[in-house]
């Protein structure tokens, strides 16, 4: 019984985490992982004059 609960929690927990994470990341697009996104004014946002 204990094994079942443990496996069940691990599987569904990880699956939920993986799904949630992946959807959150893909919504953000690629710049989310950029290490200088804070000081980078040109890349992560659309440049107004080129809209």
């Amino acid at each position, binding site marked *: 019984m204990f094994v079942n609960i443990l*496996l069940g929690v691990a599987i569904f927990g990880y*699956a939920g985490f993986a799904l949630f994470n992946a959807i959150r990341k893909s*919504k953000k697009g690629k710049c989310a992982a950029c290490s200088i996104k804070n000081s980078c004014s040109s890349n992560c946002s659309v440049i107004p004059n080129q809209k």
Partner: protein
Amino acid sequence: MNKLEIGLIGNPNTGKTSLFNSLTGTYNYVGNWSGVTVEKKVGTLKEINGNLIDLPGVYSLNPLTKDEQVATNYFLNENFDSVINIIDASQLERNLHLTLQIAEYGKPFMIGLNMIDVALRSGMKIDVEKLSNKLQVPIIPLVARTGKGITDLLSILKKNEVRNPNTKLVSFDDEIEQIITDIMTLLPENLPGNVRWYAVQILEENEPVLNFVNGLVPISTFEQHINLSNTFVKENSSAKSFKQYAYQTRRREILQLITDCVIKENSSNISLSTKIDKIVTHKFLGIPIFLLLMFIMFKFTFDWIGTPLSDTLDSFISGPVTNFATDLLQAIGASDFIKSVILNGIIAGVGGVLVFVPQIFILFFFISLLEDSGYMARVATVMDVLMEKVGLNGKAFIPMIIGLGCNVPGIMAARTIEQPRERLLTILLTPLMSCSARLSVYSLFVAAFFKENQAIVVFSLYLLGIITALLLAVIFSKTILKKEQSYFIMELPPYRKPQWISLFRSTWDKGKGFVKKAGTFIFGGSVAIWFLSYAGPGGLNVPLDHSYLAKIGGFIAPIFEPIGFGTWQAGASLITGFLAKEVVVSTMNIIYHAPNMASLTHVISGTFTPLSAYSFLVFILLYIPCLATVAVIKKESGSTKWTIFSMFYSFIIAYILSALIYGIGTLLGY
């Protein structure tokens, strides 16, 4: 000691990314064409406490395109210590324009004179010491691809011998110099870099610089100076604007530098590149050669190498792996519920996708081979004529080729296109390129229905994607996105012998996402889909036809009846496929409870006919960009309207094409 921050800048396709990889010991995507880097990349320098920032390739600090602005903004906003300017030694004249502007900026920098071997072969002998003395900065001859000269470059950085350059290399007419001095007195003193550089850039009407300065001094202050300089230029030179005048003045200085520092020897041998180019960029032969190469690529991927490998992997997963898992679950006393989620959910869903890894890697290997050898750049020029005819920019072909790997970086690569409308058009059409995720769906179906003609069927789908994109380009550019004047100059890089290491890395780089996704997203998706197929309104462990998944799939299934696949299974796969196209395969594996690929193909062939299967594949190819792609379209186009449009138009096109194929096929008696 503080951490050093060093920028890496140069013209497109001069080997910046190669150098970046050697200096940082990391690996980044290297392609033998312009515009590979469209955003900054940061790496930690080897042996030195510092960061190296790889900037997108630019010809000038006065940017035309979105990706070029990255470099200029870097100069304006980042607090860096020095810059490595990488130069293609065989294209000295063009490369030095940027170098002179960096020198004018005045921060310490050094030059990496790359492709010195190519320059020598074409008969150019560069007096490095003399050039270094003139510019007053260290110059290191390099062959970045093989790593020659890297140690010298590192030792300069280590000993901190990077020097302040000669900022007064270029001087303008006295009247202009006076205007520059006037502007300099109006500018604040604590600007990063040389004040004179700002003055010149203001006159050149460099947009990022104007925006930057505007935050400190109202830009209207300089209107008079700009007008004055333009009037002077028009009256006293052949240039039409100050920008052009500055270009001409720098060019004169560059030609002088070249006369002083370069000895040209006559090289009599017509290079091999030129000979090959005559054939592969031929007006009529170019496209057929490209198609033939693509076809051969698919032959390798499917018929010759890929399928046997995938079959082996499949029998491994469905045999030893599944048996081991079953025995283990039995031994630990797992309940039926847990057994089912692991065997029918995870192993079926994730394993079903992993099976196609060999094929995907083989395809990527060949695409990398074509890129790295320099051939893809030729294809882009060959396609240019065709692209221009349909209203696209010639450069649009590159995002599309990158899109064959994954649509997300493809759409990002559209940043290299200057005209906003052409860029938007490219962004909208790139999702029609068949990405590797879709390949797994094709693999599954061609193995079931087109055993003898796998390569040709998949080839036809890829081709259909490209042709549809071109046709839609014609329609869109004549209706909703009227075309603007545009130019395309693609530089042809020299052919080069691909290097195994870089080739394998490049293949891995493209394919790793697929493997990673299997462990994360596909895993999560498989568990969720399994649960929807296990549970229903009637409780848990319901018959499949009464599960939630059947209800959801069945709800939209009637829409697909006219195009040949009105089953709830197809409907459910298509819905889940929006999250990621590979999930279609996972869903099918879970729905059909197939223990291995052979039996899955058997079950599928019971519910599809070859005709409806082909119609389904065409639909999968086009019906909607996946979630990640939609997010990038939104980000890059900056418009919700166009994002929604990209989803709807592709669905409609997919439906029409599938209906046509299914209708005509049925009429013909298939």
